[in-house]
């Protein structure tokens, strides 16, 4: 009798201690990550570039010198360095700098949203498959296999091609492209964590499945899944702008880097360096996201 009353409280005390230690060690962990990131000049530089870009596109309406939609037939396709139009003008005489600033909004939105959505949906499904195992795992993973049978660009083009042009359709198509790889990563890391001793201990102490997943599993799997998801942003930016480049994303006259690249294609014989500017923006963004993701992976000590 005495045993049965003291045992749970002892276990509770033990759990509370564990949780506190976990909290402390996780604070120590993030401090360590930050320390490692700070010593990595490439990551810091790329993150600063991305932050500057983000500020520039958020405050585009304050810093842009002109109206992004206001064209003029008499000043079409001016070269880079034209007074008052530093980066030249596009095929309809609109200021390039202004349109690049405003264009970043849609390009970033269309590049990051699919990865964020896929991160949430893929994590839920992947952790479910990994933790539940058995038939649930089979069902989720076999459906995932089917989407793996399509090259990613083809799948994105197929879905948004069938649905028709539009920002939401492009985001939907890209989200569907990124869910399967995130499910796979989430399933793998969850399966790895599920059978560790501390999860068994939590189960033995009577914690229900929801608590175990929320406290013990998610805490250990979110880091690797998050790092993997950040590595997808670069591809997502390229694909999102690529869909617009094919005429499947944004519609004119909306400024968006991929679409600007498409409409300026005919201008490469007149103002080649103005015509390739939007692509340079995509390239810089994409490479910075890639390098920041690599830096995060190293700093967070995620394998794979």
């Amino acid at each position, binding site marked *: 009798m005495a045993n049965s009353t003291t045992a749970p409280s002892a276990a509770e005390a033990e759990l509370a201690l564990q949780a506190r230690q976990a909290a402390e060690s996780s604070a120590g962990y993030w401090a360590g990550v930050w320390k490692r990131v700070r010593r990595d000049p490439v990551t810091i530089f790329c993150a600063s570039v991305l932050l500057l870009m983000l500020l520039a596109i958020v405050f585009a309406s304050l810093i842009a010198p002109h109206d992004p939609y206001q064209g003029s037939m008499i000043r079409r396709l001016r070269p880079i360095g034209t007074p008052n139009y530093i980066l030249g003008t596009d095929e309809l005489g609109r200021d390039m700098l202004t349109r690049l600033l405003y264009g970043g909004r849609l390009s970033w939105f269309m590049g990051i949203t699919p990865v964020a959505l896929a991160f949430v949906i893929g994590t839920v499904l992947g952790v479910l498959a990994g933790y539940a195992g058995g038939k649930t795992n089979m069902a989720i993973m076999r459906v995932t296999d089917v989407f793996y*049978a399509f*090259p990613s*660009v*083809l799948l994105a*083009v197929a879905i948004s091609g*069938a649905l028709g042009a539009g920002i939401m359709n492009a985001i939907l198509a890209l989200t569907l492209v990124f869910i399967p790889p995130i499910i796979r990563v989430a399933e793998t890391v969850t399966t790895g964590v599920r059978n560790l001793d501390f999860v068994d201990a939590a189960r033995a102490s009577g914690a229900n499945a929801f608590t175990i997943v929320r406290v013990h599993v998610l805490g250990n799997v979110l880091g690797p899944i998050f790092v993997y998801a950040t590595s997808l942003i670069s591809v997502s930016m390229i694909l999102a702008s690529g869909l617009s480049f094919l*005429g499947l994303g944004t519609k004119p006259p909306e400024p968006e880097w991929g679409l600007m690249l498409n409409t300026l294609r005919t201008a*490469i014989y007149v103002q080649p360096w103005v015509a390739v500017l939007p*692509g340079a923006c995509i390239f810089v963004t994409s490479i910075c996201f890639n390098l920041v993701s690599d830096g995060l992976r190293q700093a967070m000590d995620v394998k794979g």
Partner: protein
Amino acid sequence: MFFYLIRRIAYGIPIALAVGFVCFMLVQIAPGDPINAIVPPDAPGDVVEQVRRDYGLDKPLPVQFGLWLMKVVQGDLGRSLASGRPVWSDLSSAIGNTLMLAASASLLGFILGCALGGLAGTFRGSWLDRAAVTIAVGGVSVPHYWLGMVLVVIFSVQLNWLPAMGAGPGGSADWAWGWEHMKHLILPTVTLSVIPMGIVTRTVRGIVAEIMNQEFVTALRGKGLTRRGVFLHVVKNAAPTALAVMGLQLGYLMGGSILVETVFSWPGTGLLLNNAIFQRDLPVLQGTILVLAMFFVILNLLVDLMQTALDPRIKRN
């Protein structure tokens, strides 16, 4: 090995069926009545009803899928809305052109990637390593459709060395392996090769560094084997993985060349898809995607089998 082969092929069948189902669903998720994907919009009402019955579109969805599958297995991918020709007739020539582009691009990417990755893995931590890694990151981060435009600006517009678009005189029908045609292949190939180049570099760098750290390499060095001899041993161990990555890249490029083909007006499946999207020609879209995805499924299977055949360490169960 024989049983492994049978089992691996058997495992591919449900995947192939599911891929077929996804392609079938493409027309279903398209906004509007799927009948609009088959008959022109100005067709009279009774003709529409007739076609609806002929195609089985009045039947439940699973039955429709069965009927569609029967046709596809017999090689009937339907007719193009825009041209009225069978989808397969345009597709067959386009596939050849895409395969030519994707194969030459993955070959170029493979050679460059192996060279860069091998150097980086051997001289880990040196400036060579850092340069190779930088090039690799650039290769996977660059929007290749933009790289294509930049190459056109440099080599076609400024220097006037290479043609900017098309597949040479007479189009793809008169293709020959002469300079007149080959020069049209150069820019698209280089553009498309940066992705496999980056990925192969990363992979090869990783494997080579791992192999170089293994004890048997130290033992080979210890017994006095020449650099060349050690190199051959490393190649032998790295080859299965590197070849598998290249095989998969070929499949990715077949499906992913749509953007590059659009930039260079290369008469392949990408241009076909682009036109189909532009004209909302759903049968062409569906047929092209189905064939490309099936190609990818088969290629995956072949890569798997090849890897098992080349590397006896891979378990077959």
